[in-house]
C-alpha cells in the first residue's frame, strides 16, 4: 500500500513551509520520485482532496494538508472540504 507514502507527503507539506513552497511551485516535479500509484500522484498534484480521501489517506493529515495549500477564507475552505467528502462517509485509513 502506498497510502503510507501519501500520508508522509501530506504531513511534511502541511508542517514545513519550505517544503510546501516547493510543492506548490512544481507539484509534478515534487512527486516525481515518490513511490505512489498513478491515481495518488495525479490527485496529489491536482490537490484533489476528494480523491485522496476516497483512496484512504489519513483524514487528519489530509485536512492539515488542505488547510495549508489552499489560499482564502479558512472557514469557507473547511465547509467546502466537509461538503465534498461527506458523501463518501467514513473510510478506513489503516496502513
Amino acid at each position: 500500500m502506498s497510502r503510507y507514502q501519501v500520508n508522509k507527503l501530506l504531513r511534511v507539506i502541511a508542517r514545513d513551509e519550505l517544503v510546501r513552497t516547493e510543492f506548490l511551485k512544481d507539484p509534478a516535479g515534487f512527486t516525481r520520485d515518490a513511490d505512489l500509484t498513478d491515481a495518488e500522484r495525479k490527485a496529489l498534484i491536482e490537490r484533489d482532496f476528494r480523491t485522496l480521501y476516497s483512496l484512504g489517506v489519513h483524514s487528519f493529515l489530509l485536512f492539515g494538508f488542505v488547510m495549508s495549500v489552499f489560499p482564502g477564507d479558512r472557514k469557507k475552505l473547511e465547509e467546502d472540504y466537509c461538503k465534498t467528502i461527506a458523501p463518501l462517509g467514513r473510510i478506513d485509513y489503516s496502513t
Partner: protein
Amino acid sequence: MAKIVEVIGVTHNPFLPREFRENPDSEPGIRAAYDNFLLMRRKLREARPDVIVVVASDHLNQWFMDNMPPFLIGQARFARGPFPHEARVHKLSEYRTDIDGDLARALLRGGLNRAVDFSFSDEFIIDHAFTMPLELIRPEMDVPIVPVFTNTIAPPIPPGKRFYEVGLAMRSIIDDYPADKRVGVIASGHTSLDVGGPKTNQSVDPDFDQKMMGWIAQGNTPAVIREATWERMFEAGNQTPGFSNFLILLGLVRGVPASYTALNPCRFAASPFMTWDFANGDLK
C-alpha cells in the same frame, strides 16, 4: 510511599487558549470551559504535587506510521513543546519543564512486570495534547512531569479495555513506588470529534458524549469500557478515540465515580472535564 493526590481529565482543543485570551465571552461554552480550566488549576495547586504524570496522544507530530508505539514513557531529562507549526497556527505558548526520570523509569520497569510493555524514548517533543492542558493548568512550569504517550490516531489502536488495564498497572506501580512523592495526573483527550472527517471541528455525536460523561460521573466503568471500541468511537468521529485516555484515568482510580465532571458545548467540539480529588491518598 508515593501517593496520588489529584487526577484530572480535560480537553486539549488547541483553539481554546487563544479564544480564552482574545474572546472568552464569545459564547457561554467558551467561558464555562475557561472557568473549568481555572478550577483544574486550583485543584492541582491545592493538591501540591511533586510530579505530574501527563497522559496524552501525539497527533502524528512526534510519532508516525514508520514506528508507532501504542503506549510510550518519555524518560528524557526535560520535556518541551509544542511543535513550531502548532504554535504558529494556534498561537500556543511554549512549555518546558523537567522530567522526573526516576518515576518514568519506575513506570517503564514496573509495567514490564505487570504485563504492560511500554515503549520508551529519550528524545522527543511533546505536542499540544500535552502542552495545551499544562499551559492552562500549570502555567508556572515548575513541577516535573512524566509524559505518557498513547496512540489514539493511527489504527489499529488498543480497545478501551486495554487503556483501563494500563491505568490499573500505573496505579499499582505508583502505590508501590518507595519515594515519598505526591503524584498528580492529567490526561487529555476529547469526546466525539472529527478533524478531517465530514463533521470537522464539531461534536459529531452528542449522545455518545452525554452517555460517556454520565457513566464516568456514576462510576459505571464497565459501560464506558464496553462503549469505547475503535468501531464505535470512529463512527463518532475520526478523533473520538482520543477519549480512550480517560480510560487510563478510570484504571488509575480503579473505576470509582468522578468527584467532578462537566461537558461544555461550544462551536468547536464540546470540552470535557473530570476530576478525582484525593486527600492523603484516599478519595475525598
